[in-house]
């Protein structure tokens, strides 16, 4: 049971590390999108600070989205996914392993570089702390929701953008709550309630998403 989970994680990590750029890619994408904005807007620190949480969150959302496909698509094409369904373990359990790996490869690196970007966008310490917390709770939800989207579209020849169509509306609440929390932090207001809400959403997602993913995969593979 646990061994199977770990095996799946190891395999996915190995596959990703083999193509070394693959680990860095989502982060690079994240960084580039975030830097695009100051370039377009020009240097107006106050304005930047005002929209910074938004930019960072949208960038995180897009980076996560872009790397989602990798989660299952490759496995689908080469038949590994079929084989995964033919192991005696619960599919929901195995896909959790895949989602976890995805978070390790996108969510975690984004967390690590977020201080850098906070500096770019001249965020202050309190706001940054709130940003970090929301990213910490929010990115796993993105991975789980993304898992559903990818599982639904993996069998289609052209899933790519359909995935974003499905995914983005689903992840809007996370975006809104997170930016609300960060804004609240910026104004020195308490934002624990919002974080708790995000946490509740994370719990809900952890409980239900694996089953939704497994069910969707069964549809996509057959």
């Amino acid at each position: 049971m646990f061994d199977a989970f770990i095996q799946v994680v190891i395999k996915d990590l190995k596959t990703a590390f083999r193509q070394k750029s693959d680990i860095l890619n989502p982060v690079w994408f994240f960084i580039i999108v975030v830097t695009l904005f100051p370039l377009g807007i020009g240097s107006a620190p106050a304005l930047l600070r005002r929209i910074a949480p938004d930019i960072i969150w949208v960038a995180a959302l897009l980076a996560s989205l872009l790397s989602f496909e990798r989660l299952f698509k490759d496995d689908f094409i080469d038949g590994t996914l079929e084989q995964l369904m033919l192991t005696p373990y619960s599919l929901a359990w195995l896909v959790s392993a895949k989602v976890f790996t995805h978070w390790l490869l996108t969510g975690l690196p984004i967390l690590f570089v977020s201080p850098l970007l906070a500096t770019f966008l001249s965020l202050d310490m309190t706001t940054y702390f709130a940003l970090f917390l929301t990213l910490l709770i929010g990115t796993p939800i993105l991975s789980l929701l993304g898992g559903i989207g990818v599982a639904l579209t993996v069998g289609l020849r052209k899933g790519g953008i359909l995935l974003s169509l499905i995914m983005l509306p689903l992840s809007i609440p996370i975006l809104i709550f997170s930016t609300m929390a960060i804004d609240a932090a910026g104004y020195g207001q308490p934002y624990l309630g919002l974080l708790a809400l995000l946490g509740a959403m994370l719990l809900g997602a952890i409980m239900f998403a694996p089953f939704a993913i497994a069910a969707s995969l069964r549809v996509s593979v057959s």
Partner: protein
Amino acid sequence: MVNIKTALFFIALLIFYYLFVWLVNLMLNCKNLTCVREGNVLFKNLTFNVQAGDIFQIEGENGVGKTSLFRLIIGLSLPYSGEILWQKKNTVSDSGSFHQKLLYLGHKSGIKADLTAFENLQYFQRMHQSYDGVDLWDVLAKVGLVGYEDVIIGQLSAGQQRRVALARLWINDCPLWLLDEPFTTIDKSGVAVLEKLIVQHAKNGGLVMFTTHQELQILPNLVSKVVLTKLEQAHYV
């Protein structure tokens, strides 16, 4: 008198033994399978049983539904009607224990192009828990990949890639093998080895179903055939 009694006793014993074997025996029953794809009826009310020691070749021209039949059996898609029983139990409702006994090799080989041959097999071995004892380097040597153990699959030739997928046949203890055109892009000596392996597996009480369009050497005399034919237009369900 004593003789008759003992004889009767032994006969009873024998009967019970066969009954027991019959009950416990590995067995796949496909009952009244009907397969519909995109509104086309591929086959209708297909019924056959595979038992321990059987080698079944599914035969039929291109597009007749061999791959579709395999996918029905392993539960990757659901039949329009009919059911598949493994050890008398429905495979759909009891898929966990069925999948434990099943090895499937499809048109897609199910190996990761970014991993090496060794890593691929290791993953397979760990996921199926069984046969931990087997030395994978040994197995890779058996499939003729000495020297390619640490090469990334994507850099192997078509046949070599297929060989990695086939290496799984050496590291599993599943009785039921479903092999969809296992011999494609495998060279002649490779095919001969595979044939021997399949025969051996059946002798050890395994069940094998496979498809192929090639001429084989040993197998033709040993297989039972399920022949699929294109349905006439009238065959709407």
